[in-house]
């Protein structure tokens, strides 16, 4: 990369990364796939736009368009459909007591990296919700909107996921 290209690319990257990665994150089930796709988008963007000094009017929209096509190729290659969740399949059978304590306990567990690694044992929907909360600092309302579910469902799933994490973490410690 030339110095000038590097600086331009970094500026664009820093300004758009969070939005693009959040967009991709919610469209695929596997975290590693999301990372591959986001990386491919920016490499392509660098090679086809920055390196060739092409001008793009709306970089954010352009990158989103690139993301759509990467995702479309991804679904095709994996013979998968975009992930969707419906209320019918997410029946909440229990209510969680002591929500605040539970959240505090999990968030401040000494081996937070171990807790993070345990997240992949949770259902995809719960992984998405935890990622949205902890990585992208999203509110329950925003997550609900993005996943087309009710805020209540998101909230309940969130606490249930924390409870499950706590259980997995405790079992691991035994």
């Amino acid at each position, binding site marked *: 990369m030339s110095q000038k290209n590097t600086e331009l690319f970094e500026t664009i990257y820093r300004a758009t990364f969070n939005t693009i990665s959040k967009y991709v994150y919610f469209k695929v089930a596997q975290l590693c796939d999301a990372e591959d796709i986001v990386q491919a988008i920016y490499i392509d963007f660098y090679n086809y736009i920055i390196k060739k000094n092409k001008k793009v009017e709306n970089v954010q929209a352009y990158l989103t368009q690139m993301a759509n096509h990467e995702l479309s190729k991804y679904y095709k290659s994996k013979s998968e459909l975009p992930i969707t969740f419906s209320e019918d399949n997410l029946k909440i059978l229990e209510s969680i007591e002591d929500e605040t304590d539970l959240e505090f306990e999990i*968030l401040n*567990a000494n081996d937070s990296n171990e807790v993070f690694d345990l997240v992949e044992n949770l259902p995809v929907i719960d992984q998405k919700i935890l990622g949205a909360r*902890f990585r992208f600092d999203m509110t329950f309302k925003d997550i609900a909107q993005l996943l087309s579910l009710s805020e209540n469902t998101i909230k309940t799933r969130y606490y249930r996921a924390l409870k499950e994490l706590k259980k997995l973490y405790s079992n691991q410690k035994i």
Partner: protein
Amino acid sequence: MEKLKQSYKDKLLNEDIMFTRITKKTTQKLYLSFVNFKVLFALSVVLTLIISIVVNNSSPLNPVKNTTQIGITTPQNQLAYAVVSVDINPSYELYIDIDDKVIEIIPLNDEAKTLTYEAYIGLPIQDAVEELIKNAQDAGFIDLTKTSPRTVIISMISYGVDGTKLVKDIQIKLRSSLFIDRSIKSYIIKATDEDQEKAKRENVSLGIYLLNDLIQNNGSPMSVQTFVSDLNNLELLEEYAETTTNVELVSVIQVLINELKRLNMDSSEFQNRLNTEGEDLEELIEDLKDSFESMGYKETSSNTSVDNEYEGHDVEDEEDEYEDHDDENEDESY
């Protein structure tokens, strides 16, 4: 910050880690490209010297390799970097300069001589190819009343430069053309110097040689239309020819959408469809062309240049990342 949140930020789509990985990949690619170029250059020089010593034939239809530069000397002693052979039934050989502009056109048969071709010297290769096909179509060399496949073979050899960009440019131009009949299908085949030599020896065009070689036909050479009338051959050709990736299809769509915009027509529906994930791009191209047809649209010149953002996605020189990515979606492809 709570510890788990920190772990998430460190491990899940981490901005800094990914930035390092991306810059590393792009730098690595450049380094590899440079090494490849050096190896390619050295090999080309050696090969050029060997050929110039062994072969000493400079008849107009048997160009000689230039001994001092990467490239080929055309029949009229110009330096070309690629040769594109177009086989409709009229067959032409087009020589291209480093900017992908046509510097010389050789008609390879009598049919080719009956049509205009000199006027296309100086055009970008993709425009010249489009004009040649349009001419042959308008002159009735492509029978649009028949039900058999109407096929054009475009074969290409590049000398010392990667011809990938040429292939992409031609693919995009022909797929987005609004005045080449939609039933005419073009196939692009990359060939080698050796193929060219053999084609000359057999006194056939490069495209015809490649098709006959594909089915190992040792009898009299088949024409393009005879070749494709056998569906097995057609299937073989589909496999052998350069594929059109989604990137090219998107470029085609963007060209057509921009043309709609240029005509002040509403293109929002098509743009939305293009932005929709999972959209069938081939179907979208057909629908766009339907919309042009329904308004009786015909371009007056193939040289209309329609700017679009995706035009930047043509692939340059030693890079073919998009294709690699299509194939594998793997880091290593970069």
